[in-house]
């Protein structure tokens, strides 16, 4: 007698069987909760982040100060959370700008004719031929540093792959039969665009944004760490970490390890959401 059953994964904690998509939803839910908590925490802890206390300098992590305090007595936990919120904001603006650039150039490449397509493809190749960080350093220098430079740098380095995806999608859609039939039936370009093309593009844009966003945060932190980004007055994570370097040899490890871990967790949470969404929308792999 031959019997072959598929393996079913049951979470060891719960007796209920959850299929892969349901598990994905669960992890996305937790990720979203985490991010909301960070956001709320950021607004609540803003004042604590900046207040110094000369009596409580260089305190290792304790109940009162879960992340310890720094050389000025500032509570590191509050500082980290505010820093995260700031990095997230900058990352979001940068990522959103990047997506806009990608959308415009991708659409233009697909709909403005062969010459526009060639120019834009050449532009994409150009931007891809430099390491991201080098481009960002150049742009940061050119714009005199500060938030402007970071956002611009992030926006100008991350649009390339999304633009390619959008270009490919629109090209494919344009030549798809159902679009051509609609055109033959006399529907205007706008109608075709809004009914056929945009619904296909929106999930791609969303996924693109969600996948781009964590990278933007990481790059912002890196540039700020190098000293080319936000000014030291705004406590972004990059600043926190670069300042912590000075105190490493004195053994104040909590200035480095904990904020870094916090950044890692937040970026991971975003990545996870993006990955799961991407997997669900990819027709080849959505049935796993």
């Amino acid at each position: 007698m031959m019997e072959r059953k598929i393996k079913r994964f049951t979470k060891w904690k719960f007796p209920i069987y959850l299929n892969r998509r349901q598990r994905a939803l669960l992890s996305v839910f937790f990720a979203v909760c985490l991010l909301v908590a960070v956001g709320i925490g950021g607004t609540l802890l803003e004042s604590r982040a900046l207040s110094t206390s000369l009596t409580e300098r260089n305190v290792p992590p304790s109940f009162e100060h879960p992340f310890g305090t720094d050389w000025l007595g500032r509570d590191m936990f509050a500082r980290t959370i505010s820093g995260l919120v700031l990095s997230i904001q900058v990352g979001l603006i940068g990522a959103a700008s990047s997506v806009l650039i990608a959308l415009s150039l991708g659409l233009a490449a697909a709909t403005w004719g062969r010459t526009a397509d060639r120019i834009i493809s050449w532009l994409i190749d150009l931007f891809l031929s430099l390491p991201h960080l080098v481009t960002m350093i150049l742009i940061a220098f050119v714009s005199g540093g500060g938030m402007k430079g970071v956002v611009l740098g992030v926006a100008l380095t991350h649009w390339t792959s999304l633009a390619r995806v959008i270009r490919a999608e629109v090209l494919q859609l344009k030549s798809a039969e159902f679009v051509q039939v609609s055109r033959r039936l006399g529907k205007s370009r706008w109608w075709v665009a809004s009914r056929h093309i945009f619904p296909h593009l929106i999930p791609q844009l969303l996924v693109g944004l969600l996948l781009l966003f964590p990278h933007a945060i990481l790059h912002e932190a890196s540039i700020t760490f190098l000293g080319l980004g936000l000014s030291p007055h705004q406590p972004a994570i990059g600043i926190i970490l670069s300042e912590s370097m000075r105190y490493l040899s004195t053994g104040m490890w909590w200035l480095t390890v904990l904020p870094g871990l916090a950044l890692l967790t937040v970026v991971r949470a975003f990545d996870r959401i993006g990955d799961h969404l991407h997997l669900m929308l990819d027709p080849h792999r959505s049935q796993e």
Partner: protein
Amino acid sequence: MQLHWIRFLVMKILRLASLLIAVSVISFWLVSLSPVDPIQAYIGADMLRVGTEQRQAIASYWGLDLPPMERFIRWAAALLHGDLGTSMIYRQPVAEVIHERFSNSFWLMASSWILSGIIGFVSGVIAAMKKDTWVDKMITWYCYTLVSTPTFWIGLMLLIIFAVWLGWLPVGLGVPAGVLAEQVTIEDRLRHMVLPMLTLSIVGIAPIALHTRQKLIDVLTSEYVRFAIARGEQGLGLVLRHGLRNIALPAISLQFASFSELFGGAVLAEQVFSYPGLGQATVEAGLRGDVPLLLGLVLFSTLFVFIGNGLADFLYQIVDPRLRGGGRA
């Protein structure tokens, strides 16, 4: 056959030339828009003590008082003669600075490139072969976490653990401080290179492993592997025979395309360990407004990435018979 390779080389060189021209024009133009006053950056805090005449002299020495177009032409002309200008920070010809720093960075980047390539590839293959087992889950969890981690933080962690706590390895720089150049041994150099190299390697493994794993899974679920199984092939032999051949190409192309990420990672790793490489020079040039050096570095990194992609293309052509122009019967 020879003709094919000659054409390939010529096309590549032409592309490189046009790329470098475009990059130099655009970056020069960008730099000329910068609000940063190069003279100020050069002199630094002593600005107030320098008189107007002095400033004028400095400006004309560095050619900063000419209009942008002329400056560009002078620079480009010099470029074609192999003269990249003089660095304002290091007071040396830019070409020399790049050469010196690249020799430091080269070993760093090469060793971590090889290490992360090998470990990443092997982990990816193992994860795909043992899909959905705890081995696979561990490897993918590690990789996904690492992809979300800033490179410089890994460097800082390594610094804390190995240099501060354990004291096994030096805290930074390329050579021991206060030691005469002639007395620096290879061992010293290696010891100073270990931590930055580990940083780059650890981070580099993740995308390679994930990519390899996904590609191997795609191969193992493909129609031709299914038919191979139907013909009685199984186990490691099956994977080696069909799997490796078919993931070799994507693996190669990924490996060589990672030159770009490698350079970026090197910038961060060198900064953490104050390692005197190309990355650190780029940061200094950006921070202190050293335009000739910055432009030279931009061009150099373009060349670097281009060579990486070019090598990938070349290897692709060798390995894939479909690209070599075999026609249909």
